[in-house]
């Protein structure tokens, strides 16, 4: 922590911290005990509700299938979103207004609209326009691509803008065009700066695949919901599903902060991008 909100404690302060620790710890434990007691009173701690997790190999097969679908959707969406992001970022960085303005419009539209609306829009409007059903996987992947592509475009743009202007000037002095400058000089250097933000965005993308459940895509969360139908243990099952998400995302978050730390230690590159995790700024 960079701010010292309190001095190195002396004997009296140490005693006070100890007392507060005991009181604070007891309050937290008391809350926990209350929750456990109420869970027990509502028969949520019965062995039968947990037994399937121990004795049902099928349960894990189903959850694994769901997880595979989650990861498939995330992988497709990630690749497509990076491609879209590069195109949109180059568009927004273009010096020609008839390229820049449409890129800005697309980015701001898809960042400003809820992802769920995009998913419903694709799922409900596609049959009307094309006359054919759009598979749930693709409704989800395309919606994720449009939203995350727009966010990634902004990450790339911020990365490119963080490169010292001497690089652009040197490139123009050598006679490179604007496109060549972006592609050959700025983007390769920007990748390093924006890697932590990109990995954080991957966490967002992975979490958002869970919205697939509203259109019947059998990803991890929906699979959990289906298992609840005949196991009758919603609380236990959703906690298990949450733990799977947390395990994957915590590893990705750790990777992001590792990359960020490495970035900061590298000599000569003091710039890091804040993760775009919290969502869009319009």
């Amino acid at each position, binding site marked *: 922590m960079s701010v010292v909100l309190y001095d190195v404690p002396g004997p009296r302060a140490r005693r006070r911290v100890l007392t507060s620790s005991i009181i604070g710890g007891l309050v937290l434990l008391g809350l926990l005990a209350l929750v456990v007691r109420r869970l027990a009173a509502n028969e949520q701690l019965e062995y039968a509700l947990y037994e399937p997790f121990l004795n049902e190999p099928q349960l894990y097969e189903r959850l694994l299938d769901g997880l595979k679908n989650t990861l498939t959707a995330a992988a497709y969406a990630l690749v497509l979103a990076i491609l879209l992001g590069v195109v949109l970022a180059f568009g927004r960085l273009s010096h020609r207004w008839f390229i820049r303005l449409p890129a800005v419009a697309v980015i701001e539209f898809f960042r400003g609209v809820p992802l769920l609306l995009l998913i419903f829009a694709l799922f409900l*409007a596609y049959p009307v326009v094309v006359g054919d059903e759009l598979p749930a996987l693709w409704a989800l992947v395309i919606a994720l691509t449009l939203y995350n592509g727009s966010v990634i475009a902004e990450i790339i743009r911020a990365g490119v803008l963080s490169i010292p202007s001497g690089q652009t000037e040197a490139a123009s002095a050598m006679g490179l065009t604007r496109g060549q400058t972006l592609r050959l000089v700025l983007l390769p250097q920007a990748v390093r700066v924006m890697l932590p933000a990109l990995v954080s965005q991957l966490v967002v993308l992975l979490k958002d695949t*869970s919205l697939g459940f509203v259109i019947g895509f059998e990803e991890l969360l929906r699979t959990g919901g289906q298992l609840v139908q005949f196991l009758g243990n919603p609380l236990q099952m959703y906690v298990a599903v949450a733990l799977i998400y947390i395990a994957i995302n915590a590893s990705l978050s750790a990777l992001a902060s590792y990359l960020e730390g490495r970035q900061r230690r590298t000599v000569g590159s003091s710039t890091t991008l804040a993760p775009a995790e919290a969502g869009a700024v319009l």
Partner: protein
Amino acid sequence: MDAVLDNLDVFVEGFTSTVSLTLLAAVGALLLGTLIAAMRVSPVPPLRWAGAAYVHLVRNTPLTVVFFLVFFGLPEVDVKLPFFRFAVLALSLYTAAFVAEAVRSGINSVAAGQAEASRSIGMTFFQTLRLVVLPQAFANIVPPLASIFIALLKNTSIASAFFTFEGIQAMNRLIAANGDAVIAIILAAAAGYLALALLASAAFGQLERVVRVGR
């Protein structure tokens, strides 16, 4: 187009609910998030651990899963509320983790001399935090809070899958009744969210100017 104009009242009702979900959850998230941030910077280890655990667990859980846990979990600990309040609670609990991180980084951005000065005139930890550090921290974190609350505005749409009437449910209700005007209805809903997001963004821009002048 007629399907939208004739049913404008449905959209107005839906987006009013979207706005109240957003505002109520924003207040909840701000209170809980600040509390968690204070726990994370406190000298008391158990509180620090609890705060860190909360942030790390909630931030890595999809909001949809948080909704399921609130709707199925809380009744089992005898907390039974109407669906709308459960939705507000789920949104608050989720957003609080992000607010806590923003507040904590705001606290870290306040110069160390400020806290040292307030201690040297005899303020306690809570006085230092409440009177000196937090006011400056909040002035620094208006932009990240703005993006968190705009994300919250968009996240309220998930409440539509949990029996809460809001913008998306208004859209789906109209689509069910007017199958021939699907695209116009979807575009109208999108326009509603964009307008609200622009409004929020403008309000936060104004707030940022006010706070900056105040210093």
